[in-house]
């Protein structure tokens, strides 16, 4: 195993760790920080794979990733949801954090067993840790989506899932055209923008973005607004 492979593995290991961090984060702000770190690690992995296989497309992936996920998405989120992210309150989970982490751990191991037959099926040159780690991160993101009860961490879990898919993808599609890459990145940006505006609107009307508290469906009338603020 060469040093580049080792470094790629290291980026993968830390990538997996940030996904665990997103499962366990207590504040929306740390969740966002972990997402930024995760995207940086994704870019690092793309860069290392690009160096390893001499593929300029992967450099493009790295650059697009840094621009879209490290700079633009956090910027949009901060602009639209400043208050949601920076209020220092604890975000809610269905399960307590140690239990959550243990379940997440089981999911990571399941991901490994899921990818073993996949690894056997594909050609030797595409095998590597990226697929298993990417799968694990997708599963962890899904799990986070299931247990979180607040809008911003849910959005970040969704983005983390996308990161996981990308992480698996870059080891499979080494000559991905840059156009596809850009399209996906723009897609992500738009999703974040729409979700941000939506969350902001929900917050404005109901006074909270705790998804767990939104159990009843009603038309927006002034007294609903009041009720929401009382509950908050």
């Amino acid at each position, binding site marked *: 195993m060469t*040093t580049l492979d080792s470094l790629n593995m290291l980026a993968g290991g830390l990538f997996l760790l940030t996904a665990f961090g997103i499962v366990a984060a207590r504040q929306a702000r740390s969740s966002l920080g972990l997402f930024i770190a995760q995207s940086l690690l994704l870019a690092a992995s793309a860069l290392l794979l690009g160096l390893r296989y001499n593929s300029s497309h992967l450099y493009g992936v790295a650059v697009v990733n840094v621009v879209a996920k490290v700079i633009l998405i956090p910027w949009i989120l901060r602009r639209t949801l400043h208050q949601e992210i920076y209020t220092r309150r604890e975000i809610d989970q269905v399960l307590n954090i140690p239990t959550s982490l243990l379940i997440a751990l089981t999911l990571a191991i399941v991901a490994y067993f899921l990818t073993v037959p996949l690894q056997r099926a594909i050609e030797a040159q595409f095998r590597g840790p990226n697929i298993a780690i990417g799968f694990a991160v997708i599963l962890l993101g899904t799990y986070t989506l299931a247990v979180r009860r607040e809008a911003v961490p849910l959005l970040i879990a969704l983005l983390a899932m996308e990161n996981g898919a990308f992480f698996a993808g870059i080891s499979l599609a080494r000559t991905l055209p840059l156009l596809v890459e850009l399209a996906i990145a723009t897609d992500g940006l738009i999703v974040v923008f729409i979700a941000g505006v939506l969350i902001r609107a929900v917050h404005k009307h109901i006074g909270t973005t705790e998804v767990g508290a939104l159990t009843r469906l009603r038309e927006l009338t002034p007294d609903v607004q009041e009720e929401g603020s009382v509950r908050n």
Partner: protein
Amino acid sequence: MIARAGFNLVQVLVVLLCAPLITGVLNRLKEIVQSKRGPGFLQPYRDLWKLFHKDEIVSEESSWIFRATPYLSFVAPIFVTLLIPVLTAYPLSFAFMADMVGGGFVLALAGFFKTLAAVDTANPYGPMGASRTRMVGFLAEPVFIIVFFTVSFIADSTIPFIVQKRWMSPPSNFVQPSHVLLMVAFVMLILAEAGRLPVDNPSGHFELAMIDESKSLEYSGKGAALMKWAGHMKLFVLMCIFLNVLVTPWGLADRIALGEVLLAIPLVLFKIFLFVLVLVVIESSLAKLRLFRITEFLGSAFITSVAAMIMRVFSL
């Protein structure tokens, strides 16, 4: 053979004599960072000197456990010193007596006796601290086990000298993800085991919030001195295992020569000093966790160590 036994003695002396210095430097640096006045870095030596010259009071109600514990907890880190590379990169005469799990067992034995001794005197704060230490202990246990398991999985051995060689040979071994993740998990373990800040406040004087300190509240004079000294040595030994085996396996004596072994002393102290700087940053920037948050802290250490293991499996 005689040379190696002699080097063993040098190692033990280094641990005995330098351990209070490291604690003193750590405390002094923390005072500087937090703009406190505080005593100089030689204060631990002065404390030990003072305590050794004071009378000892032992409760009539206490049993032999209370009296034996200071000696036991004093001897345990010295035993572990014989097993680990403190100054030399080659195994010394007792190195194969026990592996890392054995060393962990010896340290845990001392911890066990400290807990018993705290309960023994029926001082109200002792058993409280003892039960808390047990709580931290049983949460740290799975992390220990997984860390040792992963180390033996990667390096094919749990003898610290062999593990240390393993990271050196090709440099790509060193940046292996499992290795780096192990380091992170081990730092968290050291913080929990040595009673450092996010888990326990070593400089706290409030009995109700104490975890580790309250166990030696009943000791006075010589007993207290031994317990304190044992605490310094335990931190030193844990740092030695961490730095010399896992993080920086360089700078140890390679040849069987007294000059090299003596040269290794300042190098090892320098490495420990750098790690102390990291500890100061950790301890000055984090607040003590609430008692039930410790579960989460050690839970994340556990996740990190298991992730290290998973990464090893992924890369096969």
